[in-house]
């Protein structure tokens, strides 16, 4: 074990290598799980992936750079509509169409992120929350009014058929999971692949000078400024990165839901995302993943729970918000730093003892 650790040290000390290895291993495990899951669960995994991408961007913004956004649901809407409009024009049959649509979604959200981020960077605390809240309220209404965006009915989203995928992808998936790829598992695989890439990038940023600047601006803006950090620029970069994540998440959401309509992007979505981030632990990507998992899977469990207590299916569906609220309250009461945040001291103690063990090992 000790030899393995020292052999791996050159690799694990490089953040990029470490993040890539963790992401790759996690991705392979998840793909195997997705392959074995039912269609219903595959859809839940896909949902978890795009929620996690949006939550990851949000936790970076709120936890690292200290800006509270109530508008990430709206940014997801921007991404969803952008991707939908592109897919409508290209037909959305091939894998290339999908990636072009997602890239456009990210690009449009980057622009929106800069436009919203520049004035928001001058605001603090409740004021930036208010400004982003405006976004959350305004965007669905705009979509409602514009005929190009399908009004209240929304737009149908064409999705690639699994049979149209390149043969090597079909073979690869079959090789790893022993199950033929279909439309549902394809979206789950795609979601988790992009989630892994996004989280590697976000983890890199968070560990880098960029993330250090964000933390400094969050903790003490005067000192950060004296250290030569342009406060506005640091905040706008954080907001833009976060908006790009929301755009990607929105694009994926559109493909999964197959309908892009204003009703899906109300203020509730923004608040739910924020709640997921707080639940997992602010500033932690693992926390964002856990929060997204709760978002995607809780309705499933809550409905089951309701039915096992003898409620009808429609009644049981109403249990979800109650359970979600209860979980959130419990976490805030028992683990104010979020799930990951509260586990962190414990994990730190664990790794400290193992590090102590390794130095002992070395000296003998």
């Amino acid at each position, binding site marked *: 074990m000790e030899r393995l650790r020292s052999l791996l040290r050159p690799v694990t*000390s*490089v*953040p*990029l*290598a470490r*993040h*890539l290895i963790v992401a790759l291993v996690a991705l392979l495990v998840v793909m195997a799980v997705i392959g074995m899951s039912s269609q219903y669960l595959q859809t839940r995994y896909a949902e978890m992936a795009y929620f996690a991408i949006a939550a990851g961007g949000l936790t970076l913004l709120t936890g690292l750079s200290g800006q509270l956004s109530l508008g990430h649901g709206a940014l997801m809407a921007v991404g969803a509509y952008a991707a939908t409009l592109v897919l409508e024009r290209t037909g959305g049959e091939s894998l290339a169409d999908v990636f072009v649509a997602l890239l456009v979604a990210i690009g449009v959200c980057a622009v929106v992120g800069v436009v919203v981020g520049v004035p928001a960077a001058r605001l603090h605390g409740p004021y930036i929350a208010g400004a982003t809240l405006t976004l959350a309220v305004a965007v669905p209404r705009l979509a409602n009014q514009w005929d190009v965006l399908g009004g209240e009915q929304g737009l149908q989203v064409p999705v690639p058929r699994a049979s149209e995928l390149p043969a090597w992808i079909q073979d690869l998936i079959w090789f790893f999971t022993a199950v033929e790829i279909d439309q549902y598992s394809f979206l789950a695989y795609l979601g988790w692949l992009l989630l892994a890439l996004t989280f*590697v*990038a976000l*983890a*890199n*940023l968070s*560990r*880098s*000078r*960029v*993330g*250090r*600047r964000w*933390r*400094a601006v*969050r*903790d*003490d803006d*005067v*000192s*950060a*400024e*004296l*250290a*030569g*950090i*342009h*406060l506005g620029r640091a905040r706008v*970069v954080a907001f833009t990165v976060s908006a790009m994540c929301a755009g990607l998440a929105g694009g994926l959401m559109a493909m999964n839901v197959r309908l892009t309509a204003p009703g899906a992007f109300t203020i509730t979505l923004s608040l739910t995302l924020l709640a997921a981030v707080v639940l997992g632990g602010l500033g932690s990507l693992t926390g964002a993943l856990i929060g997204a998992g709760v978002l995607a899977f809780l309705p499933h469990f809550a409905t089951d729970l309701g039915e096992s207590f003898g409620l009808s299916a429609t009644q049981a569906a109403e249990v979800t918000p109650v359970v979600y609220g209860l979980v959130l309250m419990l976490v805030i009461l028992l683990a104010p730093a979020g799930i990951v945040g509260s586990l962190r001291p414990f994990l730190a103690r664990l790794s400290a003892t193992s590090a102590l063990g390794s130095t002992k090992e070395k000296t003998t």
Partner: protein
Amino acid sequence: MQKPGEATPLFAVEGVSVRFGGVRALEDVSLEVAPHEVLGVIGPNGAGKTTLFNVVCGFVSPAEGELRLRGETIRDLRPHQLAGHGIARTLQGLGLFERMTVLDNVMVGADRLARAGFVRGLLGLGHRDDARLAAKARDVLGELGIESYATRYPGSLPYPIRKKVALARALVAEPELLLLDEPASGLSAEEMTELGEIITGLTERTAVMLVEHHMDLVMSVCHRITVLDFGRVIAAGTPDEIRNDPAVLAAYLGDQVEHDDLDAEVHAITVAEEA
């Protein structure tokens, strides 16, 4: 003690005036700092010492006057641009990044020396550059004898250590002019002696402007002293000259108010307003 070079001042404040509403916080203040010199700025509460620092750092823009670094104006620079020009400052309230480790705190101070930008950060390729900054930060922590606290969070540290962290964060930027705002406040007599030695040692690499209340420290480490009262320079000279200046004795040394008392500060400002 070395004699400051008279020929080229590193930094000069020329006829600076600052008004807050009707209050004249600074009135026609001029001073010069030579390379490797320690200049003390003293005066009773409300005399305008911190305002002067805020002007130098770009937090307050002067109504009149000029600031020059090596002869070039820096009057219109924004606060974040000063670090790049080799000016670093510690704050009276320290302003440590409480949710970052001591090492990270100091590495933020070294940010102006960093080369890895956004793209390298995104791709995770900035770790060499980061390791270089971390090594620099550890060097400075070691120099101040607090390297063992590198992985701790500032909130868990005693006040004198926190002050050293703040000093390390300013020093790691390799400034040519270091502004120290009340570095001795809250320190014991021994710690103050150590601080004096540290400041004297700093002159090998930087000039220091020192705002301080503790006269013993000021008199022992400063090459020259500028005395402010009611926003004006009432005296300037070597510690010996200042010690015997009648105007200073009247304005400052005779002043027996509790220096950390906010009421006294408010009182002084009210007096200034009436004057």
